[in-house]
């Protein structure tokens, strides 16, 4: 393929949302130079407004079915309905992270604009990542995301934040090394002219899929695939690559914890879904056994480790590991022809998970102290009485994460479990249900602490340190209320959303 034909394949309009995000990110930096210092507090709000406008445009395009679908940039990217869903997802996530960040940074003496700039760049990269159809594109997008997160995790420069950043850097580099090594092995073996289906363009997903299907038992190919999946497993926080999560989540500022827990994890699942349904011929191979094993271990580990956890950020991190397990269950189911629609269920679960997690993180971020190392669950005593909105939204969010009907989390789990049932993954389904039961213990312990006074055994001594509850601006209250309501409404009524997410 010569340069000219490649250039002709560049469909710039296909990545308009990503370009717009990039321009918005750059625009923030320009605004910082142009605006007088007194007006700098407007810049984050400009980011918020810009993202909302972009979200509106994106939703409008999707509702009109006017987006570009198909391959662009010579097959580096492929745009599809599921990609559009992920774009909306990341944009919603970044908007909420920006909102949380505005509140969190007001309590810090730190440069502000870079924070929002990096969030936007990372978001654009995540959008490209889940739409990439070529390992080079995938690697570049992934590294953009990861490098952005290295900075964001240690942004607050407290000792815990820096420690978290360092751990994330080292372990992230390690996982990138595995991923790269896997890609290299795949490239090498698929370029071997002696093997059937060998291709010069061996990093393109289509060619690679053809090759891997023809060489099912090739040892090098298997090692390559495993290494690539291990690299992605780090992103989603699946066992045994989940070990960094509690430390990093606790050290990062709450908005970034939320960004990691929701955005980064979803990006990992976007890639994973692409890989196992389009690139790697999972079939009845060792890869499938690996997926089943990892999903079960992830569900159990996340829930068990969260049982005794009292620090809320670590608790959200570990329970997030279990949610990664449920999602892996869905991804595994999606590799069975009987449950192809499970991709849609996974994306639906991600949306539900975002609404619930963001509700909880929004409350956490608002209540956070200056060091933002995470509150203990015991400190939430009387929250429901002192602030019904915060208590109510927290309870709805946690209830949805626990999967209690009639909240959205219940429907999300039911869809995943139905898919697993159709795929015949009975053992894994049993593990998942046991995990859900375990999770009720710690989620409800927290809800109980926040809402129910009578459950307290020891009366609090009058002089005890009370959690400070700051007044919340109207916009914040509306956002929290919308998140809570979305969780409620999606529990009762999923019609349009499930129709949109029906990719099967």
């Amino acid at each position, binding site marked *: 393929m010569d340069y000219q034909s490649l250039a002709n394949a560049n469909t710039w309009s296909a990545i308009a949302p990503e370009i717009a995000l990039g321009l918005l990110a750059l625009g923030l930096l320009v605004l910082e130079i142009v605006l007088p210092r007194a007006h700098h507090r407007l810049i984050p709000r400009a980011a918020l407004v810009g993202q909302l406008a972009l979200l509106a445009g994106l939703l409008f395009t999707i509702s009109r079915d006017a987006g570009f679908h198909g391959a662009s940039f010579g097959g580096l990217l492929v745009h599809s309905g599921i990609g559009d869903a992920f774009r909306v997802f990341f944009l919603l996530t970044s908007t909420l992270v920006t909102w949380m960040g505005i509140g969190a940074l007001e309590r810090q003496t730190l440069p502000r604009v870079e924070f929002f700039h990096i969030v936007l760049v990372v978001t654009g990269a995540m959008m490209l990542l889940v739409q990439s159809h070529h390992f080079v594109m995938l690697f570049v997008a992934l590294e953009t995301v990861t490098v952005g997160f290295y900075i964001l995790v240690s942004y607050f420069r407290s000792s815990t934040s820096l420690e978290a950043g*360092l*751990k994330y850097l*080292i*372990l992230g580099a*390690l*996982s990138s090394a*595995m991923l790269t090594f896997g890609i290299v092995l795949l490239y090498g073996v698929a370029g071997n002219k002696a093997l059937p289906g060998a291709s010069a363009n061996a990093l393109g997903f289509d060619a690679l899929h053809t090759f891997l299907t023809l060489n099912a038992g090739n*040892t090098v190919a*298997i*090692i390559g695939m*495993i*290494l690539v999946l*291990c690299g992605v497993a*780090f992103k989603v926080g699946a*066992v*045994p*690559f989940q*070990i*960094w999560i*509690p*430390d990093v989540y606790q050290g990062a500022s709450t908005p970034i914890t939320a960004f990691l827990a929701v955005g980064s994890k979803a990006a990992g699942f976007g890639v994973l879904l692409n890989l196992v349904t389009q690139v790697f011929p999972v079939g009845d191979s*060792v890869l499938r*056994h*690996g997926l089943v*094993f990892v999903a079960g271990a992830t569900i159990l*580990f996340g829930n*068990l*480790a*969260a*049982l*005794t*956890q009292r620090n809320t950020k670590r608790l959200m991190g570990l329970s997030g590991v279990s949610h990664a397990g449920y999602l892996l269950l869905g991804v595994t189911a999606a590799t069975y022809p009987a449950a192809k629609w499970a991709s849609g269920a996974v994306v639906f679960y991600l949306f539900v998970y975002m609404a619930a997690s963001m509700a909880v993180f929004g409350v956490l971020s608002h209540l956070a102290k200056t060091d933002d190392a995470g509150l203990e669950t015991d400190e939430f005593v009387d929250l429901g009485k002192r602030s019904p909105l915060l208590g109510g939204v927290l309870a709805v969010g946690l209830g949805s994460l626990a999967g209690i009907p009639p909240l959205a989390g219940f429907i999300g789990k039911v869809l995943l479990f139905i898919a697993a049932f159709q795929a015949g993954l009975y053992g894994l389904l049993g593990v998942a249900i046991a995990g859900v039961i*375990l999770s009720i*213990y710690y989620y409800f312990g927290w809800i109980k602490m926040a809402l129910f006074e009578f459950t307290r055994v020891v009366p609090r001594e009058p002089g005890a340190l009370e959690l400070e509850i700051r007044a919340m601006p109207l916009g914040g209250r509306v956002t929290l209320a919308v998140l809570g309501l979305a969780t409620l409404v999606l529990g009762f009524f999923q019609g349009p959303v499930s129709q949109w997410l029906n990719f099967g």
Partner: protein
Amino acid sequence: MLSPELLALLLLAVPLTSALLIAFFFRRAGTIAQVLSVGAAGAIALIAGHLIFRMGDAAVSVPWLTLGDFSLSLGFLINPLSKVMLGVVAFVGFLIHVFALGYMKGDTSIARFFGCMSFFMFSMLGIVLADNLAMLFIFWELVGVSSYLLIGYYLERPSAVAASNKAFITNRVGDFGFLIGIAWAWMQFKTLNLTEISAQIAADPSLALTGIALLLFCGAVGKSGQMPLHVWLPDAMEGPTPVSALIHAATMVAAGIYLLCRIHFMMTADALNVVLIVGVTTALYAGVCAVTQKDIKKILAYSTVSQLGYMVAAFALGTMYAAKHPEHAGHAALTVGAAAAMFHLTTHAFFKALLFLGAGSIIHGCHHEQNIFKMGGIAKKMPVTFVTFTAGYVALIGFPWVSGFWSKDTILYLAGQVSPVAEKFLLAGALLTAFYMTRLWVTVFWDRPKSDHSDHAHESPMVMLVPLLVLAVLAIVGGANLVYQPPLDALVNSLPHPDAATHHRLLVTSAVIVALGFVGGRLLYGWGAANDRLETSIRPLHALLVGVQRCFDVAYNWYVANVQQRVAELLGFLEHLLISGLVVRGSAAVAGVLGIAAKSLQTGNIHGYVYWFLGGLLAFWFLAFGF
């Protein structure tokens, strides 16, 4: 524009809205709750009036829940029978709501009272309107709940709490049979819709099974306080008096009778025999029990049980009569059995609600004294209450040409035609009624006051007297044809009319019975007494009667303490050992230990974390290629 089903929906929506508003917003606002609840009751009366007199019959049904071939539906069946019941519930209910305004004045949790009253109206109207057994059962349980809440209204009294529990649990026994009956009916007919079942049985009478009929009757036995499940109703008098009048005299306890009439086509000859025996026995037995009571409300409660027995018997007798005399099969709209039972239900609702409200007025005036032997001389202190109560009294004992006379004599006439044995029992019951009511009437109203409370008695306010006066008029004239305008005239037109000779015989018999009872009461109690003359003068007879009254409670208490409690303790022990101990705590302990282990893996040491990654890689290597 206005359709019957829309009005029916409105009938349910109005009290439910009132109850929900009070529950969520006005728990502390007694005045608003009063206005809402009484306003709702007034609206119900208006809507019901429009529905009864201006609208035709209707049957609508919408599917609600479908599971395979089983489907539950919600719907309304509006026919002359439900219109009669609707009229009673809406009209008497409204009057009692108004009365409660005065009676509950100054109570601290008045909003809870009126919220529960609205909730009761919602549930009761649901029973009246339901077109299928499943929906009927749901509302049946809801009236049970509201009855439970209202009996235990005075939370601080342990006896009230115990009474509410007793009512609820006793009703469970009956409802268990009812539920099994419903399930069996579904197996038999593949539908629970009353109209459809009726059509099936009309096409093939052999489809009606005695078992189903008797199981459904179990529900009526519990709810209407028939033997042997009558024990809860006297205790239920722990609730506020308006509740006793509304729920435990006029409407809810009559729901069992209404149920029988609603499912009359499912009855078989054998089932009717059982129903008749239960009704007649209850009518007589409760009359015996009433004789020894000293609490004014308990006397009236046993009287209610007795009259409910009459209604059950009326249903059985009327249905048997119609089977024997096809030429008198009744008006097209109502069978003879349903008409006879519903006629007595209606007049009873008037005069028993009146008597309870009168008792409430007396209790209110006497500063919550309920022992009749501590009253006395009330006639002079509370003249309006006296006059209205007397109206209820003559109606209940069946004084000729008063409402109770017509409905009771219809029953006696049917008994004479169908079962002379039943007639003797029912006559004895009537004698007892006249006796114990005379005892109550003279002791409470005549002679001098027997305690400070009755000495300082005062007449009740207008808001309580007006409902009394309205009900008093109805208690007197409630048996007359002119009260029942079309379409309610089906009630009286469906009844067989005795020929002149029989009519005169009945009239004389009734008058003699009433006179005998009255004279007996007067002989024993004169114009009032400070203590129970029966107890002091004929001690062995009194002891026997008390024993008869208590024997059910004693037997049930013995059973609960010695049989049920033992089984429960055994099950409780097994539960502690196996489920709570082994399964719950055992698995919780395993999970806890694993949780601590998982947490201890989080060392915070980055070298350790890197080894995790490498270990993970190795694990996958082994998974892929073996060792």
